[in-house]
């Protein structure tokens, strides 16, 4: 009798415990994120251009400048200055600390001097320009003291082989469909994007803030994905963080409320 009572009690406890645990509610939330930088002193922003390197398939300087200008136009309160992209490579080369002559790639086939920035080490040689307060102050004066956005962009091909997990459809002996995870060895190719955004005070020429991002996308080696499409895919991932530097953003998500 006591054993039976204990069994009933324990099953009741289990039922209540499960009922207690199952009281959860998924709820959408929007997290407001304050801007990282106080830009209240500026009415205008100049996306000056970037020192870009990596693959020749995408012009990292022009594409990044265009994309950031269009994003800032719609998603920030600052007025975006329409201006030609600054020749930052030349400016860096002219600077005393820069290499005397930019490295020339494919000089025999191209008329213009094209510095070959293939990796981060090549890029380092030009980065001193961002610390040149006089240069940026001069640019600031020219455009009536805006907030200046500049930096570096490395967009390089990348490849990696290894095991990847994918889902495979299988049918059991009774004809039931099941989806099972399968690990297969795969050669993958894609791109790596490493931009460094530098925010400069156009009134003083000093750097207010800088931020580096690294994003990578890999596809099956047989898949031919255009470099430009990969570039936009990767930029799309980090744009919210870039925009959050200048303006408040709301990040949508879901959480689980409990009882």
């Amino acid at each position, binding site marked *: 009798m006591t054993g039976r009572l204990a069994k009933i009690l324990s099953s009741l406890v289990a039922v209540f415990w499960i009922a207690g645990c199952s009281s959860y509610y998924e*709820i959408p939330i929007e997290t407001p994120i304050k801007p990282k930088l106080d830009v209240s002193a500026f009415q205008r922003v100049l996306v000056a251009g970037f020192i870009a390197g990596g693959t020749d398939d995408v012009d990292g300087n022009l594409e990044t400048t265009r994309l950031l200008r269009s994003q800032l136009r719609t998603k920030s309160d600052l007025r975006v200055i329409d201006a030609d992209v600054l020749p930052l490579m030349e400016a860096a080369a002219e600077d005393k600390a820069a290499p005397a002559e930019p490295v020339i790639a494919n000089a025999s086939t191209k008329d213009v001097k094209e510095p070959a920035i293939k990796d981060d080490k090549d890029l380092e040689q030009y980065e001193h320009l961002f610390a040149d307060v006089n240069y940026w102050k001069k640019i600031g004066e020219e455009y009536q003291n805006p907030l200046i956005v500049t930096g570096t962009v490395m967009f390089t091909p990348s490849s990696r082989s290894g095991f990847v997990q994918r889902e495979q459809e299988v049918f059991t002996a009774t004809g039931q469909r099941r989806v099972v995870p399968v690990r297969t060895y795969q050669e993958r190719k894609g791109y790596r994007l490493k931009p460094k955004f530098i925010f400069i005070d156009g009134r003083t020429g000093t750097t207010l803030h800088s931020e580096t991002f690294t994003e990578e996308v890999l596809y099956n080696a047989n898949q031919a994905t255009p470099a430009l499409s990969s570039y936009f895919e990767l930029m799309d991932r980090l744009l919210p*963080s870039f925009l959050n530097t200048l303006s408040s953003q709301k990040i949508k998500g879901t959480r689980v*409320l*409990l009882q």
Partner: protein
Amino acid sequence: MRLHLVLVAFLLGATAAPMAADSRGDAKKQVEFGVNVAQRGLWREAIYRWERAVQIDPTYAAAQNNLAIAYEHEGDLEKARAAYEKALALDPNNAFIKQNYELFKEINDRSTRKDTQ
């Protein structure tokens, strides 16, 4: 004398359990109400309810979890982190709280990262 002590201990134990159950019951009512209003978008009222719930029963992990979510929704990330950490300390194996906290950290890290200033 020994019997007397045993009796006192028994009475204390017998009254403490219902008292704890009562405070959890009261806190649960506040949490339920909070969930209800949060689902209708009334987050400030939900915060009030869940703050009441953790005052009544500071060991109520679900209330701390919900409070963390509400703070996150209001953009008070410092308070949200503290509440998530309390919730996890109270119920370290709760998969829902862990998941909520991981998602929160992702946003919080993104909003605070920088190289120089």
